[in-house]
């Protein structure tokens, strides 16, 4: 662990709660902040692809997930980029490769499948297997009936992890980075609670923010600082249930988190102006690696992660063009039209609707956290040593070796890093 890590993960789960509680008590202010960040966004896997961003340990970005150069002249449409992505898969099929699309019925995986159906021949589609589960069926019943059932080979994604699929000869395709591209995951909750938050602020701030509500995609994000800070506060009630992680709250946390993101924005050369941009950047830059790598790490027990990442897994949205499109289409109605969840991923909704003509889905589909809710929670862990189960995977070293929380050397490494890490932003 002398070389930079490739992935790290502070997660508060029953198996690790006591460890992180002890670490926090021995951490410096930066270490405490990192654990509080995990408490806020369990898990904490934030790492910047661009701009200044410190962590308790050295960590680098795998080349394939590096941020492409911002190109203000990029002008391909979402449809063009999506069709191109499907044609890339088509080319690989023509080389004899077989694929398993991780399909949840949500917008991202439905987009990927729509593109494949649109751009591949019936013969070529025989090389696509759908990895789905019972939640996938009811999340998008129209698409299931019309385009999947009876037309594709289907495997159960709840019992077929990445290693199972690869061992059967498939390359897994995931659309897990859709939220990074469209960038709303961290703001939807704020949008839903906007009026509620306003009620808790001063009269002057409340009036100001109510006037700004409709300008979320034009006004500078700093105008919303009061409500962003309110949104960033850690509240114990938000972390009940399975997390049940109680710590003394740091009253400075919200301000610290805001300042850390702002510093990152100001040291990057990508336009981040509006409230929407602010939250988009939080996931597009800071959570991208998590979305890109988590399946290879947590839905895989047998195949070395490097091989999965470099040779097998395909992240549908991890193309330079998709990312360039994302950097150039933030406030024009392609990603969100109104403040709220119902117009989220509008470009994808339109693409899907062109194929399936399903008005209900187009107008009313809501984001569901499918990976955690319907895949990872149902993993069969009976054949895995508890010490090496996904819940105990801390990260990857520079050679893609998985680091386990039960390893004393990993624990010592974490404690040493956290106790020396100071707030430096």
């Amino acid at each position: 662990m002398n070389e930079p890590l490739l992935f790290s993960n502070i997660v508060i789960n029953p198996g690790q709660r006591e460890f992180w509680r002890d670490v926090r008590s021995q951490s410096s202010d930066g270490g405490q902040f990192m654990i509080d960040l995990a408490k806020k966004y369990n898990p904490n896997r934030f790492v910047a692809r661009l701009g200044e961003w410190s962590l308790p340990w050295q960590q680098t970005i795998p080349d394939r997930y590096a941020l492409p150069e911002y190109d203000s002249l990029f002008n391909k449409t979402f449809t063009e980029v999506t069709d191109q992505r499907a044609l890339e898969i088509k080319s690989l099929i023509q080389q004899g490769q077989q694929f398993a699309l991780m399909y949840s019925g949500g917008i991202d995986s439905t987009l990927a499948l729509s593109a494949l159906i649109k751009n591949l021949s019936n013969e070529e589609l025989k090389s696509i297997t759908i990895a789905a589960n019972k939640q996938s069926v009811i999340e998008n019943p129209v698409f299931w009936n019309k385009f999947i059932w009876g037309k594709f080979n289907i495997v159960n994604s709840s019992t077929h992890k990445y290693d199972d699929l690869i061992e059967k000869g498939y390359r897994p395709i995931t659309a897990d980075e859709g939220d990074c591209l469209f960038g709303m995951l961290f703001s939807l909750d704020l949008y839903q609670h906007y009026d509620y938050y306003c009620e808790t602020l001063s009269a002057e701030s409340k009036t100001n923010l109510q006037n700004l509500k409709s300008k979320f995609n034009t006004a500078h994000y700093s105008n919303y600082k009061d409500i962003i800070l309110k949104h960033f506060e850690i509240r114990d009630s938000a972390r009940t249930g399975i997390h049940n992680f109680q710590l003394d709250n740091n009253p400075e946390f919200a301000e610290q988190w805001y300042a850390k993101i702002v510093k990152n924005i100001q040291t990057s050369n990508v336009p981040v102006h509006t409230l929407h941009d602010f939250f988009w950047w939080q996931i597009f830059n800071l959570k991208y690696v998590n979305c890109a790598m988590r399946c290879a790490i947590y839905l895989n027990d047998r195949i070395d992660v490097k091989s999965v990442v470099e040779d097998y897994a395909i992240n549908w949205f991890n193309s330079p063009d998709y990312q360039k499109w994302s950097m150039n289409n933030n406030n024009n109605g392609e990603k969100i039209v109104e403040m709220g969840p119902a117009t989220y991923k509008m470009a994808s909704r339109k693409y899907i609707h062109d194929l399936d003509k399903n008005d209900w889905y187009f107008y009313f589909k809501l984001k569901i956290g499918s990976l955690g809710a319907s895949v990872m929670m149902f993993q069969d862990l009976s054949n895995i040593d508890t010490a090496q189960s996904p819940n105990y995977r801390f990260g990857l070293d520079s050679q893609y070796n998985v680091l386990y929380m039960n390893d004393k050397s990993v624990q010592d490494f974490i404690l040493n890093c956290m106790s020396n890490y100071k707030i430096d932003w």
Partner: protein
Amino acid sequence: MNRPWAEYYPSNKNSPNRYALFAPPLDRFLIVDNLDPWLLFETGRILSSKIINVAYILKADELTNENCLNYGTEHNRNEANYGASSMSSIKQSASMAFLKQNNIVHKGWSTEYATDDRRQAVLDLQEYALFVLQCVHAITIAESYKNLWPESKYLEEFFPDNAPEEFKTKFDPTTAPRGMMHEIKNILYHSSSLQEARANIDQAWIDYSQTDNANFRSLFYSAAGITAPTVDQNLLKDTITFWAC
């Protein structure tokens, strides 16, 4: 709205609305009802093919089906626990929750559905939801009163592995392969519009009720308060006469 099915709930039919379907994508209540929470929940289950929803037990005398699209819930940090728009806590399958009166607030029409096409989509959805509720009440009433031969349902539920499969046929007085309750709900779950659902329900009754000597079909239509399609009487089999022979 004329609600003949309300006659079957004498103690509730004039009471205020106590049950509502909340639609997180709209952040508003989609429909309200005062008769039966479990059938409203069943309506939500069927409607989940179109929209995520939560069946709330609530106390809000001001809510009606004419104004509920302007009402939502007060957003506090606990709302995720009972199924509103906080993303990570929602699921496509319907759920049920209790909502205190002070969580209901007037919000006006959703700004996310202000354009003409999106407004119409919401109104179409509400109309569809009310039709589903209407049909769920009607088929439940008709099934309860007029299904004289429900034995296959007993076998399916109570003898899943210890009765011959061939016994599990004819679920009600019709010839619908799995019974009309199943048929109607499936049509409502899978239809893409109210017109399609209505046409398919009518057709299903025409196709499957030729042996219906128990007036199962008639009670469905009368309880629902909708006009039954005209059926060629020559197609109907006089099963009672047949058995009497």
